[in-house]
């Protein structure tokens, strides 16, 4: 369990975090969402003990990161957005080096290293220098290191950014697996849809303050979907027809109908009855989530 309690941090005059508090329970994936510069990475750095807070504390399974750093750090794994390692090392050697900090003997560390590197898909790269690793490989390596000692808590910071579809699928699978195994996972991203797919709860942060905490169901409810309708041609009549059901945005032959006031099937029926040729008709959640996100950021009521 990860508990973030009243954490504040300033960088000079800039308030990076202002009394941030939330928790991640075991068996739960919590999304941590906010725009760039909102304070997500600062929160995470404090949570993993690499940055001291000005106030507040973080508890990992009840151990204070400030006062019991070693105990707390041994219970949490961290995959940073852009992992940076000492480039001169080979992957397995660096794994061994870091594992010795977790109390493993060099021989045990090497054995475990081969196993975990294999598990994260780096089995063939174990003897390659870290300086030759791509961003995706570095994240996989960081994941392997974070799995040493099989901790109960994991923190993923913007882990999906910059990954290819295969990498995204891999990390989603890992997070789902961790949740299934009862681990507490904090998963940060600036893309809500990314988080919504895997998180049971989402913590929204903006300008260093928590602006909302919602469950996945609540988000689904709050984010009323938009309809994306592509027609053979768009004229004034169809615009008037659709305006009856909600606000519209028109781009060439496509109309986005926001917050529809009727069931999608009813709207489609009306269009067909009026003789319009509908080429595409689908529910688009993406924009709706973004709007929810923007509303939260702006402090509007959702």
């Amino acid at each position, binding site marked *: 369990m990860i508990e973030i309690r009243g954490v504040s941090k300033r960088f000079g005059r800039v308030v990076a975090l202002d009394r941030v508090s939330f928790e991640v329970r075991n068996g739960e994936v919590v999304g941590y969402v906010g725009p760039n510069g909102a304070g997500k990475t600062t929160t995470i*750095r404090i949570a*993993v*003990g*690499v*940055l001291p807070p000005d106030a507040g504390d973080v508890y990992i399974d009840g151990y204070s990161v400030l006062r019991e*750093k*070693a*105990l707390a*750090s*041994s219970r949490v794994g*961290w995959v*940073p957005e852009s*992992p*940076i*390692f*000492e*480039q*001169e*090392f080979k992957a397995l*050697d660096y794994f*061994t*080096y*870091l594992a*010795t*900090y*977790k*109390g*493993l*003997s*060099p021989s045990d*560390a090497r054995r475990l290293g081969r196993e975990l590197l294999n598990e994260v898909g780096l089995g063939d790269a174990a003897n390659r220098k870290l300086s030759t690793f791509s961003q995706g490989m570095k994240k996989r390596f*960081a994941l392997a*290191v974070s799995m040493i000692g099989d901790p109960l808590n994991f923190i993923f910071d913007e882990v999906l950014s910059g990954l290819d579809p295969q990498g995204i699928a891999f990390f989603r699978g890992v997070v789902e697996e961790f949740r299934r195994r009862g681990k507490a996972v904090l998963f940060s991203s600036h893309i809500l849809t990314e988080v919504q797919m895997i998180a049971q709860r989402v913590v929204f942060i903006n300008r260093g303050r928590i602006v909302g905490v919602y469950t996945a169901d609540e988000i689904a409810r709050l984010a009323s979907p938009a309809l994306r309708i592509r027609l053979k041609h768009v004229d004034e009549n169809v615009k008037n027809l659709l305006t009856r059901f909600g606000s519209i945005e028109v781009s060439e032959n496509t109309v986005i109908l926001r917050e529809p006031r009727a069931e999608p099937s009813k709207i489609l029926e009306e269009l067909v009855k009026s003789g319009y040729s509908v080429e595409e008709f689908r529910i688009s959640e993406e924009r709706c989530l973004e709007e929810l996100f923007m509303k939260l950021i702006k402090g509007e009521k959702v």
Partner: protein
Amino acid sequence: MRSAISIDFKRSLVRPATLIALVLFMLLGIGISYLILQVFAAVTRAVGFLGYYTLTNSTITITGVAYSIWGEKLGGEAVIHIENCTTSLAEAVWRENCVKIAEARASFTELLNTSIVLRLENAKAPNLRVRINVSTWYGALAIRSGEGFEVSTAFATSVDRSPQAPTSPTVRIRPPRAFVEPVPASPFGSKLFKLRDETIFVAYQVIPLRDVLKFFIFIERNLSVAPLLQYVVVLEGAGSCENVEVFYGYGNETVSSVNELSEAVARGELKPLANISTTSIVYAEAPRKAGESKALLVLRSGSSVYTEVFNLVDIQSLLKTPVTTAMVSQLSTPTTFLPVVFLYLAYVLVAKPRAVGALEFVLSMPVTRRDIYAVRFLAGVLTAITVSGVLVAVTTASTIAMLKASVDLTHVALLWLGLAISLIATYSLFYMLSTALRGGSYLAIAILAYILLWFALPIAATAIAITIGGVSKVAEVSNTIKYINPQVLFSYITSYILTQLTGESSVHYDAVLTALSTALWIATPLALGWAVFRKTNLSS
């Protein structure tokens, strides 16, 4: 944590920069020994030559053996010059007023024996001079090193007049200048025996080593010779020279008759060493008797007995002081440049990973900042201990191997300790800088600090001292600023050893100030570095 220290130590040591520096310094250590050997060979004469020449009509024959001060038979290359001098030899200055009239070269493995035919305009009374350059393993070193060393392997003598019939064997030999200094502690002599109608030439060299006496005995019968040696005594005796026996023993008693010799042999006080019936060179060795300070060599030919008593001082012990002195002095050279290795190590272990943000991920492990700070410092400490150990060991081993001299192990241990602690203090300084400065800035400031402390400060202090107080002030200022250097302990220890060995001290060091300065050089930067590191942002 111990494993992490071990891995950081391993990567500090087993990295190209450290290994190249270490290999260079090891080669330098061997080079230092080589240099010591050259200096030693030149100054102390590491090579000796036992021999003689004969001049018959117009043919001069050179015969002899070369040996090292450690009792090894040496082979090599001999260059023999015959010079004819225009002035009398008594007045002639070495090599001046003399013209080379013949030259011969000869390679030899054990015995040099070469003849040269001379073309003399005035064969009746030539002022001849024989000069031999023997290039052996040791001698060759000396010759290659410059003309100044050449005297150490040049064996020369002058001929006042041609030897005549064997019945007039007296030959006056003028010791050449090159032989003024005898080989250290080695009884070195030659004797001409006239026994009835025969003249026996006996030259010997006894080399006392720690556990063994080595004998070189050169005997030539029925000969009129001019031995190529510096101390020559002509003895005339009577007896048979059919058989020459050699005995050795320990003690201070001389043996003056065959009866006394027989009794001494019967009592076991003298032991036979060799039996020579014809022209011969004897290489022999006998175990040294513990506690004896004198030994004697006895030659018997028929009823004639000759005894020589000589002091037993083993050469290795005599060499200890000059060898250790040279080693200590020469170790200062790599010590001046070793800080560069530790400047670089602090860059690799802290400044560089901190600059790119790589320490952040390390800190996410179950460790504290203090652990990381301590681990990487201790890795440098272990590297300092290892590098200094290897350097001192290689220098010592190569010195012992090349010079076959014993070195006081306490001195070696002190040198290691002094060098290791000095390097730790040096590393502490650069470590502090690496916590406060990143990447390129660190390198610039660290190099500046190195130049300032190791080179600029002493020069500047000397200049200031001369400006404000004249030359007399320099020593006073130098005595003060020598503590403003992380390597003051090594300087103190070298000064201490040299004082112990030679009884002289060129620079006075205060032991308390040295200890205090060293402790401060280690502790202060370490504490300041920690004060910075505990607060510093380790993210990129």
